């Protein structure tokens, strides 16, 4: 059966961590103040003499095995043929079970309506052939809407980025471009004589 799975492709080599995607989404959906459907995580890791620093922009991953979908007592979630996981707020009573069961913390409770809300991949735009709000607003086109099966064949596309636990059990529909790093000329990190610092304590 040829179904497709829509998802996001994030290029960490381009993402600036500027948060435009978060606010473009909020503006597009007229979200109440303080409610966001996307998050930016800074990833910073020292590996030997290099520092890996990049930003992850994440929203709902429209998983193949969505936990929210499994546990919702009102069966308010469904997964379309194109893989988008949609929530029916009319069936939702705001119990919050999904918010506690998603490994990516994608569903949030809208404090105005009392019901759950999460990224819906702007399915209304996508059905019209347009990009989701976040994809369209990114100033450097770090986010793309893709067909997961198509990009899995590409060489520079990976499921996980260094230093991040990405739960695969739910089979999230998000892919990343392989992270590249430049050369870093860092000042010596170990230095004697700086006040309060004792190299023995390392």
């Amino acid at each position: 059966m040829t179904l497709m799975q829509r998802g996001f492709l994030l290029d960490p080599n381009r993402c600036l961590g500027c948060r435009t995607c978060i606010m473009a989404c909020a503006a597009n959906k007229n979200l109440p103040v303080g409610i966001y459907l996307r998050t930016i995580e800074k990833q910073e890791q020292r590996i030997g003499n290099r520092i890996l620093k990049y930003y992850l922009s994440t929203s709902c991953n429209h998983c193949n095995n969505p936990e929210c979908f499994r546990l919702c007592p009102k069966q308010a979630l469904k997964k379309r043929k194109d893989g988008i996981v949609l929530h029916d707020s009319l069936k939702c009573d705001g119990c919050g079970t999904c918010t506690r069961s998603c490994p990516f913390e994608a569903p949030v409770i809208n404090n105005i309506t009392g019901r759950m809300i999460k990224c819906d991949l702007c399915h209304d735009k996508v059905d019209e052939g347009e990009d989701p709000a976040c994809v369209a607003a990114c100033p450097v086109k770090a986010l793309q809407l893709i067909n997961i099966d198509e990009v899995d064949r590409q060489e520079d596309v990976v499921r996980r980025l260094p230093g991040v636990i990405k739960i695969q059990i739910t089979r999230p529909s998000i892919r990343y471009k392989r992270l590249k790093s430049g050369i870093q000329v860092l000042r010596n990190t170990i230095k004697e004589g700086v006040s309060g610092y004792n190299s023995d304590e390392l």
Partner: protein
Amino acid sequence: MNYSELFMQAMRELAKGSQITELAEMLAKQIEKVVIITDATNRVLAHYDPLDTGIKMSKFFTLKYHIADNVSKESDTNNKRFYEDKWDAEQGLINYVYFPIEVEGKSYGNCIVLCSSEEMAIEQIKIVEQMSLIFLLALRERLQNDAARERFSDEIVYDILYNNYDSKVALYEKAKHLHWDMEGPYAIVVVETIPDKIDTVRKTGSLKFNSSSPIHTIINKKVVFILSLTNILSKNIEDSINSFVEKLLSNLAFSHIKDVQIGISSTAKALTDLHQSFQEAKIALELGKAFNLGQINHFEKMGFLKFVFTAPAQELQEFGGRILGNIIFHDLELETDLLDTLKVYIEQQGQIANTAKALYIHENTLRNRLKKIEQLINLDLGRIDHLVNIYIALQIFALDFYDGS
């Protein structure tokens, strides 16, 4: 009637829309022998006994030498037009010959005649060969119809399993379409193997379960079987499902498919719970893979691991780092193997002797390492409440390396 006349008549019948059963009858009557037509999975599609020998047919007629999906013998159609074997039936050993119905290496089935090769006259062989062509056409059309039906059914099953319907009424309508037993309860079995073999698994799984064939489909490269548990006592459910699974596995082994992973859901009471069971089965499968728990995994038996993996990834990462971070740092900076040591120690149920053996080190070396480990993580390997955290942290790191393959 000579063979070309029979051929023309059969063609006309085929064009009119006759089924394989009618065509089989035509052939059987002509050659006055029992004719059996099977498909590519050895399932009997039609049989006719013109002499009323009273032979009993089962659902499958499995051929031994020319195995259904062994699809390489193009040259054989030139040299050998049929094969011979004996069938160990209720009535005793019966000779039979069979003509593979295949084209360009793809097998569509077999045409089997119950007699020995000597008993086949040249004329009759010719007739059977020509009819085989007609059976080929009929089988192909049947396959295409099946495929179309299957696609249609697959879409409906997808919608049911992923809650993609508007109302309960709509759901029941869809289920009726597929001749589903409305009552339930159900269980779902999800099977994963090498992508090339998925279709075979699906076909092979069409075994009888609880006096009917399970609904089956393929979603995201996994075969999904929906088993109807009507009238099975709850204490027998697990056993029935297990025997289904075992039968499936042995059939697959017979087809040389051994690398199989299976997940089984808990019981779904109604049609409207199927979406949940579907997820359960998949999770049991994935957890089984991630934590190396064996080939067959029941969701209900997953234990606490269910909760672990669904905690937010950030929290898991922080927890893992908090508990085992110092060991990892130590291993990185000083090139030691403390994490591995700890892992094996836990795997060996905390037995010093077994652990030391598994790691190829001396017991004293091991004790020193364990002491160092305790120092670094500031936890006591003798305390159960500490061990629990260590065990969970280790599982989290196992998850970290698990990328779904």
